[in-house]
């Protein structure tokens, strides 16, 4: 049984920087991003998320849309338990799988297979389980013999394939995916969407951040618009997307 429940959640980032003062005005006036507050002489707080309350139930597929820096990734990382809320309550029940930045956490000198192996152990498998699913994951990437080549030679699209294969292996209750399809080719995006759809049908909750309205309306039954770390709108996909197109 999966469940996500957030009540009045705030996330404030401290930013420590000896030269922060001179940058203050240009930052505050920026159109995008959260709200910067001065803390002390050389530290700032970014209010990345403000007063976020919502809940999701099994079967919910939520699309997050908004400007760069509006808090989409922060919200996903909060749901993953990577960020702790500064205030408020976060309740996430279920086994969580994440696909955030595919470029992070890889061993550049190791082969694709070795990275598939270590990544799946990192994501909660034992060594034996990871070994057992290695072939299946390798097949999904369609990288063939490239999987025997060091990761440092991979293009970002190939990395995406490796990352996607690992994070969608298994049966997560909650799947969190950050804007990642930018570098995938069309064939792979279609295949991924297929795999995601199958996963979503089996698993409970899916949260997806994207700038692609088409993907969001294809995959999600709910949409949330974030702006400056606040929920601007939240509801059924069609309704919210038409609001979004109207310039909210």
């Amino acid at each position: 049984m999966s469940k996500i429940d957030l009540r009045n959640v705030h996330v404030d980032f401290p930013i420590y920087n000896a030269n922060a003062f001179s940058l203050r005005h240009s930052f505050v006036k920026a159109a995008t991003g959260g709200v910067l507050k001065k803390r002390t002489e050389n530290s700032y707080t970014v209010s990345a998320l403000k007063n976020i309350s919502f809940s999701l139930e099994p079967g919910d597929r939520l699309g997050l849309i908004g400007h760069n820096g509006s808090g989409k990734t922060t919200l996903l990382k909060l749901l993953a338990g990577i960020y702790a809320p500064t205030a408020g309550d976060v309740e996430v029940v279920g086994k969580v799988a994440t696909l955030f930045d595919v470029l992070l956490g890889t061993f550049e000198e190791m082969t694709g297979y070795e990275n598939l192996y270590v990544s799946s152990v990192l994501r909660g498998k034992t060594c034996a389980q990871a070994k057992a699913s290695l072939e299946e994951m390798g097949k999904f990437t369609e990288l063939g013999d490239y999987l025997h080549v060091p990761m440092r030679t991979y293009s970002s699209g190939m990395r995406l394939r490796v990352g996607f294969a690992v994070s969608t292996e298994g049966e997560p209750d909650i799947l969190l995916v950050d804007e990642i399809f930018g570098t995938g080719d069309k064939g792979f995006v279609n295949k991924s969407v297929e795999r995601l759809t199958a996963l979503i049908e089996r698993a409970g909750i899916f949260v997806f951040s994207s700038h692609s309205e088409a993907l969001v309306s294809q995959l999600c039954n709910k949409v949330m618009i974030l702006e400056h770390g606040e929920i601007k709108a939240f509801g059924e996909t069609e309704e919210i997307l038409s609001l979004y197109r109207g310039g909210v």
Partner: protein
Amino acid sequence: MKTIIAEFRECVTRRDVWLLLSLYDIRARYKRTVIGPFWLTLGTAITVLGMGVVWSSIFGMNITEFLPYVAVGMVIWTYLSSVLNEGCAAFSSQAGIIHNVKMSYFVYIMTLIFRNLVILLHNCFVIVAVFVLCGQTINLEVLWIIPGLILMILHSFWVCMIMGIVAARYRDIASIVGSITVLIMLVTPIMWKIDMLKGNRQLIALVNPFAHMINIIRDPLLGSPPSLESYIILTGLLFVGFSIACDLYRRCANFVVYWM
């Protein structure tokens, strides 16, 4: 306290992660080299040999007696200084993983410790070689290295907890630690013996926890029982260290991710 015990448990249940990560770290570091991690062994061997030859002559000591002493001291010191220095990046060096997967930070500490234990094992070849060459024998006292090594690992753990958190927040710490490491080595009895110090200057070695740490492993390897005094001091320090580390961890662990 409850969460900290739960995190220790997570660290045990997810041992596959730190076992694999540390081995991959070492393999990745020496990929495409011919002798791989034995570069570490070779490096240590050269250092020990060089220091042994020069300093035994300076002190007018028999090299077959002095070389085993330096070899053991140097190998343990290599471990201690690596843990101290790498401890400053215990968490920040794993930022890529921390930003992507939710796991107890203790897993990253165990990765660091286990990686350095594997390196220590490679360096043990130097000790074996020097002992054979110098005709140094071992006796039953050698069993004392087991509690000694356990104590060393426990100390490594709290040091990494503190350094990992503090150095993630204050970036100068890693540089400070790096620059005092050589000083610590020079004031620790590795290349010299405590009884070479005159009078109350022996206090330098007495208040130096690194000296005690090295003593409780080096003495039994060289055939004499470790001093009770070292054990008392190190056990006391262990409790103090863990209390501070757990308190700091309880208050700060949630913020570490924001500092990276």
